[in-house]
């Protein structure tokens, strides 16, 4: 919500660069956003429309981009998505992410490093999925760990 609103002045999950998925059957809700992964799969853009910014953020050149969708397909967790001719990916809000400010649970943190985790193992599993399905897959894996903790506590 905060992401879409502060970037566009409008609201709607398609305009957000951080997407929330609700996996009701697992009791897991969570945001999926660019993790500045070690591999930087999206930078393999054939048009070189994507570049790495000084904070580690992905910068998209709308003039060079021809909406081929390679970046969307390449991202293993669905953190890049094209909607109505625009590539949506986290730009880190100039180091002060609005989503971090907005979250009253303290669930989102900004680590500040340029290299996030490796997504190599997920990449193999999510290759043929849509961005929405990739986000679900990613969240399920994160959720499994959380659910183990819950079960231990309430077994």
């Amino acid at each position: 919500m905060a992401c879409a609103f502060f970037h566009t002045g409008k609201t709607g999950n398609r305009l957000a660069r951080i997407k929330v998925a609700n996996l009701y059957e697992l009791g897991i809700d969570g945001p999926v956003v660019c993790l500045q992964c070690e591999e930087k799969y999206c930078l393999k853009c054939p048009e070189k429309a994507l570049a790495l910014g000084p904070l580690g953020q992905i910068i998209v050149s709308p003039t060079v981009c021809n909406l081929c969708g390679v970046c969307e397909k390449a991202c293993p967790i669905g953190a890049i998505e094209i909607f109505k001719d625009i590539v949506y990916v986290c730009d880190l809000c100039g180091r002060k992410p609005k989503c971090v400010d907005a979250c009253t649970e303290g669930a989102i943190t900004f680590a500040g490093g340029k290299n996030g985790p490796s997504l190599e193992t997920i990449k193999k599993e999510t290759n043929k999925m849509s961005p929405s399905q990739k986000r679900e897959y990613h969240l399920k894996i994160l959720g499994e760990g959380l659910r183990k903790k819950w079960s231990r506590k309430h077994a």
Partner: protein
Amino acid sequence: MLEFGYGGRILRIDLTERTFQIESLDPSWVKPVIGGRAANSKRLFEELDPHCDPLGVDNILIFGVGPLTGTFLTASAYYTVTAKSPLTGILGDSAAGGQFGAEMKLTGFDQIIITGQADNLIYLFVSDTGVKFVDCPDYKGKKILETTEAIRKEQRDVDIQVAAIGPAGENCVSFAAIVSSGNRVNGRTGMGAVMGSKNLKALAVRGSKPVELADTLAFLAENREIDRKILEHPEYKKRHNLGTTMLMTDLNSIGILPTDHFQEGVCGYVDEISGQKLASSHKVKNKSCFNCNVHCSRYYMVNDVEAEGPEFETLCGFTSRIGNRSLPFALEMNAYLNQIGMDSISTSEVIGWIMECQEKGLIHPKDLDGLSMSWGEEEKIRQVVDMIAFRRGIGDELAKGAKKLSGRFSEEAQKLVMHVKGLDIICGDPRGIKAYGLTYAIASRGADHLRAEPYFELTNRKEEAKKRFGTEKAADRLAEEGKAALVSYSEKIALLADCLTMCKNIGLCMDILNLERVSSLLKAGTGLDYSPEYLAKILADAIDLDHAFNKRLGMTRKDDTLPDRFVNEPLAKGPTKGATVDIQKMVDEYYKIHSWEE
């Protein structure tokens, strides 16, 4: 042309013909009702044959959101479902939060109006461009989460939001619910049965039309102030931790926690079934509706059961109200009722009423096909819930609701049904909260607190009471004085919350919304001119319209009352000992304020 806030369109779906039509929403039609609940009521009033069979082909089922649903406004998550109620035969509606309302808003449809009856079990998939009619005979009997998952899988999109019915809705149980976001329930007045009668298993939505505001900066400033008020609210932490389950100990401490079917207001074992006990023993995580910062919902695990909730009504309904002291059992019932799609309040009333009548010897097991139940009997309760949902044996009669069922028994037994206008009363004994008593009596969908939610009565703010309602007594829960004024104010704010839409736990109970603030929000949001005076007028008109709707269906002044118990039987012990409700006095005053004829 509605450019801001509103989606600006309505979607009409004819299930019989399997056709749909997109219309633009006429600004002059919607402005005087704002949106959400009031717009749904107006639509029903204008288009429904008032004497139609609620479970017949002619009933109209309306899903509605408001101009600020799904916007930056905090807790703007709600949607209302409206139809003629199969439980009460009068105006029926029920709202829910979660994620469905915000996603429906993104389709650009402010109302989805469903008529006719499908010839086969189907679900509807609504997107910006219209509707897909999807046959789903194999979904028959599926529970809510199974249905949600199946639709998401079939449509290859995990971001789809689904409002579905379970077996109870398919079997047209009079108090069947619609459930979205897995566990968010449109519980009251049997909207799930209307859906079931139309052979409609689910309404799925996925939109992509962003919501634009007329004056973004002004809206942002107003909402910042709202957020500040919420986060600094003295109840914020408690609500975040316990949600509405905080009411278990709160109501018990003032002697109005329904116990053994309202025979008592103090529950000796409250600490075993309280919100605090739930939070410390079984809660694993806070859950939230769309764009909220209170996160009052909770996910829990207990034995093999896991689910979201319960809200106070379900917790109390399946513990003290029916004499059950096992919290794990109540949590199991919450999960089960949500998944089969049945209203926990009406279900617990059927059960509690039978238990009391059998204890008093007013109903013999042979009159109920051999069914006998006593307080807190877990296995029996499990069986009865299933018999109702699947309409097995005597469950077929129980599925008509406590009031209709009571017609077969003595007058004494009939008097013990805790209902107004056929809708079962919520968990709050009105003998110790008089404004709530008045609200149950006058609410246009039958015994219900949410039509006004006069929480102010419990906040002990005497000076503020004098200022707002002319008497300190408005903040005295045991007094009748000033309550008609309080309810007449509070019902407007409740309606506003349902029209914008916004959560009433926040907008109303936390005292966030008032006419001035909403005037600014609506101006900044929609660009339309809504002065506080104009708002007061149109809200009064909308309340008059509900009243007229029910009048047309045969309701009169004498239906605006409370069950005999609350009027004539004083509570025997506790902090509300000796109290009854002088309901006629309050209703008289309320009618006077509304200039309604007898």
